[in-house]
């Protein structure tokens, strides 16, 4: 079964430090992978998708097929980045499977 794994429940860093949120997937084909974010008291929303190769709010994520990973990175964390982050993979017709989530806490 297609699966997305986020090994860290909590990642705590100081402002200005680099951030890497880990995501590994198990899928035999060509995966479509995404990062979703949920800020405090806000809706869950799409942050970025691997196919777009975009940088959103300073975050990037590169698909590494050799390591089956899709880690989310930001060189300098900001306090407003504190949120819950979910890695997700699409099955068919917009049906997504989500990881267990990582809470990022950025301290001043």
């Amino acid at each position: 079964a297609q699966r997305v794994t986020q090994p860290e429940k909590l990642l705590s860093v100081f402002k200005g430090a680099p951030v890497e949120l880990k995501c590994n997937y198990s899928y035999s084909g060509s995966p479509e992978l995404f990062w979703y974010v949920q800020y405090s008291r806000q809706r869950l929303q799409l942050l970025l998708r691997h196919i777009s190769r975009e940088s959103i709010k300073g975050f990037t994520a590169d698909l590494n097929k050799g390591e089956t990973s899709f880690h989310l990175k930001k060189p300098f964390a900001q306090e407003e980045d504190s949120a819950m982050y979910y890695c997700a993979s699409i099955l068919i017709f917009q049906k997504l499977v989500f990881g267990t989530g990582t809470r990022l806490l950025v301290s001043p």
Partner: protein
Amino acid sequence: DVKVTQSSRYLVKRTGEKVFLECVQDMDHENMFWYRQDPGLGLRLIYFSYDVKMKEKGDIPEGYSVSREKKERFSLILESASTNQTSMYLCASTPAGTGDTGELFFGEGSRLTVL
């Protein structure tokens, strides 16, 4: 902006009660989903629907049913609530025919407590 509205933000129910969670979207989306969100477990798909009167089981459908009588409305039903159904429930929608973009539009969530 796409708006997905979940009618109840907070509910407290007793074991055995029938519970209705309502979700309405205003962007004419074909696809609608119900997830539950639990700490350490992430989001798990309960049911989804690609069209009116159409429904498909997700990963954890046991103890739940759904209704999609109108395109804009997708209801989640707990026939007999149990304490292990205490959770945050998230509704989401997305249009069909746009390819697998992966962008779901979520509601604010309904936090259900079953006593």
